[in-house]
């Protein structure tokens, strides 16, 4: 077998193993089941909320249902992403599986690539499951193909990919999943608030104090460096456009490239930490 084929087989083996092991984690299954229940029951739940608004009731119900499902996918999806990204490497160090794997002809780069690919398999699979349910629920409600939802899911995945890559990188330096999980939540929240950093810069300098200016420049620097996860959100379009409209005002290839660039940066950071990590 050639070196390339051997590399691909080894990486894929680690990825599939990571996926199989990850899907057995009880907390992940609990989050997934809860999200499925919320999405599947969204129509039922929103029917109670809209009882007092007879005018345009159906539209309002659909909007609330979309709101609930998009929010559920975002929240539960990111929780699954962060939890699994934060735990795959530390848990293998803890149970010593990593010793037997790295003592085989497996480079550290390859090991990390396999683990990261395994994490992405889990994230993608969960996202597909949640989206499929939402898709069916929305189709049954509106009787039109909600194609906009598919675009939204694609962008949501790239948002999760960025969060996953940096959480994964931090987990390579950690001995347990606790700190990387907290850091992952911080990354997600900060990434969704970067627009505020631009506002801070715009409003800085009004007092002429040096500290005011410095905070402004730091905010601008962070705005330039941190990923803006809001770019990946089509929530408003899902809520206010028809479900089969194409997405508006976005450059899809650019956003995908933007997501991939940050994901690669996160992976490189993970490798840089892991290449000299002592087991």
């Amino acid at each position, binding site marked *: 077998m050639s070196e390339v084929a051997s590399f691909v087989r*080894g990486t894929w083996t680690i990825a599939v193993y990571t996926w199989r092991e990850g899907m057995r984690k009880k907390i992940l299954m609990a989050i997934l089941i809860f999200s499925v229940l919320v999405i599947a029951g969204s129509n039922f739940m929103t029917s109670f909320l809209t009882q007092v608004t007879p005018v345009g009731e159906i539209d309002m119900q659909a909007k609330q249902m979309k709101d609930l499902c998009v929010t559920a996918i975002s929240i539960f999806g990111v929780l699954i992403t962060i939890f699994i990204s934060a735990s795959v490497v530390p848990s293998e160090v803890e149970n*010593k599986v990593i010793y037997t794997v790295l*003592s085989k002809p497996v480079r550290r780069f390859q090991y990390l690539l396999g683990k990261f690919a395994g994490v992405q398999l889990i994230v993608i699979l969960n996202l597909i499951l949640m989206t499929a349910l939402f898709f069916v629920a929305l189709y049954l409600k509106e009787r039109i193909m909600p194609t906009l939802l598919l675009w939204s899911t694609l962008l949501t995945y790239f948002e999760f990919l960025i969060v996953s890559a940096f959480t994964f990188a931090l987990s390579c330096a950690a001995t347990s999943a606790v700190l990387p999980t907290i850091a992952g939540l911080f990354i997600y929240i900060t990434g969704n608030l970067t627009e505020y950093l631009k506002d801070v810069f715009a409003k800085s300098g009004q007092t002429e104090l040096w500290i005011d200016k410095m905070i402004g420049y730091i905010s601008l620097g962070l705005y330039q460096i941190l990923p803006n996860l809001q770019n990946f959100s089509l929530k408003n379009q899902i809520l206010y456009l028809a479900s089969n409209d194409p997405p508006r005002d976005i450059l899809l290839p650019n956003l995908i490239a933007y997501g991939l660039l940050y994901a690669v940066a996160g992976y490189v950071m993970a490798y840089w930490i892991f290449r000299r990590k002592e*087991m």
Partner: protein
Amino acid sequence: MPAVIETQKLTKVYESSFRSQDVRALQDLDLTIDSGEIFGYLGPNGSGKTTTIKLLLGLIFPTSGTMRILGSDDIGAAAVKRRIGYLPEGAYYPDFLRGEEVLRFYGHLYGLGGSDLTRRIDKTIETVGMTGARKRMIRGYSKGMRQRIGLAQALLSDPDLLILDEPTTGLDPIARKEIRDILSNLRDQGKTLLISSHELLEVELISNRVGILYNGVLQTIGTVDELLTQRDVLIHITDPTGGLIAKLNTAGLHVEDATATKMVVRVPENLSVYDALEICRAEKATIQSIAPRRETLEELFVRVVGAAENKTLA
């Protein structure tokens, strides 16, 4: 005979935030293990055995010194790792997999596949005596079965060098014997084995050479025959008289297993057997047998570690 493992001045220091709290886990280790040897690597907990193994496998990095494994300086190279099998102490194997699935997973990591891998899995499972349990889930395995499947993953690539960390710890006597038999077979096949263990009897039974490590320093190394040099003589006596024990003790002889009707006198190597016999004859004791007794590895271990400990305290 070519060296399979060669280390020179190998040192590992685990650094902490404060230099005074640095831990010197291994210090100036000069170790050579030749092809076909079974090397018993002994030492109390925390002596640096596992640190050495992790260094040899590239799981941690040396502070100073050099290593060569299977003639190569690049211990991370795939070509080198393909020729090494490793069984870690207390390793976990995913309990949602079957025994043969675990081996298939590790086989793929070796770059093996297809009929070649299937053939190797069959052979390895047979070698470790797991044919009947190969399709069972790991979660249903006993500790001994898990250890055997661990040994199987280490043997899968038909490695030239096997590194085994505590291969028999925690196993019942039958499982220990089975593992020992497997290792003896591997020795007969010409494999090189590095065995780190606390089970001194096991090591004594199968090793060609042993090294004893204490506090990160190799205290002694040599063949079992070279190291177990202390040879006492045991004199079995019946009908001992009351004054005999006192006289023997005064002469520096050790009385063991004394009862009213019999006892054993151990004559250390530095004392004369004739003097002991003379005392027994004078006391009219009946001598049943006189037999030489070689020091055990356990006694050597206690002696060497004890001396090193005293030296450290002094």
